[in-house]
């Protein structure tokens, strides 16, 4: 189905957060392979083990850490315990990708793999994509002026290898492959978790019917998306652009009519 949506075969990421151990190997592998600069001095946030905080121009994978107070069953009943949620976030490589739609230079483009990539030699740093992305992924590097984000290791895909993060992940939390096949695998996994009593397990971004036409990088989450800092159900805003142009056209016509009226109502 994904091939039909884009009219091309398509690869993607399935990030199964239920097996993530929070090792951040993906973050490191991404930085190393893509020569992404460090943020500067280590800034301890106090937010569990997360000192990366968000996806940005200099963080193309971001491992979120969430500590939840839960009741855990014990032999004598239940006790207060901590549940850890860890999830490696990344650009969603949307089917209907707002960043790509709005880019005025054609710097952002759809690759032959169905992914979304910035051409750094073209980007003029207008920042439109930054405000368009409903996931807050793409961002500007201040000292450089251009925008940066995950390329799904476009250079590695071209030579037939998998992205650095997927290769580095020791638990197969990050799985790379044909998108349709990943969707099938994810469905089986979520059913397995439901059968094991994890009833909050859910897939996020896998459906081609969602507001972005399905993400090329989708997730298995163990709680609500917003707990992980993800928007619950974003809709690509460029979907309304036709209606917006029509409204603007009507407003422009009203403006001209108003000016004409200002002259025509003249008595003097």
């Amino acid at each position: 189905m994904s091939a039909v949506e884009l009219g091309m075969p398509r690869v993607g990421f399935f990030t199964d957060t239920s097996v993530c151990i929070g090792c951040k190997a993906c973050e490191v592998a991404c930085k190393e392979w893509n020569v992404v600069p460090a943020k500067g001095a280590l800034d301890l946030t106090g937010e569990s083990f997360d000192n990366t905080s968000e996806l940005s121009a200099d963080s193309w994978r971001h491992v979120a850490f969430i500590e939840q107070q839960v009741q855990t069953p014990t032999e004598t009943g239940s006790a207060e315990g901590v549940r850890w949620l860890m999830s490696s976030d990344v650009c969603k490589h949307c089917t209907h990708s707002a960043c790509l739609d709005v880019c005025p230079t054609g710097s952002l483009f759809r690759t032959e793999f169905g992914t979304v990539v910035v051409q750094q030699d073209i980007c003029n740093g207008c920042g439109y994509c930054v405000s368009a992305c409903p996931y807050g992924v793409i961002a500007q590097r201040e000292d450089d002026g251009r925008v940066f984000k995950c390329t799904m290791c476009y250079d590695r895909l071209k030579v037939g290898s998998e992205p650095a993060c997927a290769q580095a992940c020791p638990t197969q939390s990050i799985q790379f492959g044909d998108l349709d096949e990943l969707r099938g695998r994810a469905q089986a996994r979520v059913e397995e978790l439901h059968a094991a009593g994890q009833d909050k397990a859910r897939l996020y971004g896998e459906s081609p019917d969602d507001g972005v036409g399905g993400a090329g990088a989708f997730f298995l989450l163990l709680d609500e998306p917003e707990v992980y800092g993800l928007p619950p159900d974003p809709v690509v805003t460029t979907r309304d652009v036709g209606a917006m142009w029509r409204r603007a056209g009507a407003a422009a016509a009203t403006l001209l009519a108003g000016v004409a009226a200002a002259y025509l109502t003249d008595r003097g």
Partner: protein
Amino acid sequence: MSPRRGPQEEFTSYYGRPILKPPTWAPLDIAGYLFAGGLAGASSALAAGAELTGRSALARATRLTALGAIGVSFVALVHDLGRPARFVNMLRVAKPTSPMSMGSWLLSAYAPLVGLAAGAELVPLPVLRRVAPTAGRGAAVLGAGVATYTAVLIGDTAVPTWHDAHRHLPFVFAGSAAASAGGVASALTPLAQSAPARRLAVAAAAAELVATTAMERSGHLSMETLHEGRARTLMTSAKGLTGGGALVLGALGGRYRAAAAVGGLALAAGSVCLRFGIFEAGRESTIDPKYVVQPQREAMRSQAPVA
């Protein structure tokens, strides 16, 4: 430590962090451009009317205003780029899905026409005088587009306040642009010729206030950002200046040149405040994740099949 919960949040966010990235745009550049582009576009429309009805002083004032404002717009737009030297990349492609791309083409067609129309006022060349009327009429039509497409430019983003306002913004911006252009022209033109500018300014100010109120009452959660913090100050000032400016201009602007100047400039200042207010409210709406999470949750609930 458990994730922080904001006081009114009905959901757990990720340590209270934003979901969206705030706009990279500098307020002075982009909110400034929203104003200057609107002033230019609507001034061109006024200028064409002045030319057609033989009001040479009004034509001169509005043509020069349009030229100055579009010049400022270009400087602001280029300055705001992360890589200003690459600004010509805007014309690499033409993409209807990108309002910025369409806007760049629109401006590239509009600005030379403004230059030709205003050129006739600045350089006494017969050829310029001959093409100025036609160029000016072209600039009027394109100018209406320049004054309103900026609503699509900011509406077509994930910024909650801007996107939620996308139905109202074109009319808010059209009104604001016409009010500022009419106001500036009233201030710069002798009373004998400025009557159409005054009429436009007063009517547009009223239209802008109506459209802004409709936008604020559209029921979107994000509209509350228009009433908080700095945006609140700006939006309140915008209403005061626009309403007051229109009253002074309408009541006294036909008799006293000073009143026309005061009222007209107040309208322009009101337009400035409105653009900066909407810009600021949008920025704020990207910071608090509730403007992303709550509306999306509500949409999901209303779409969910009733079990």
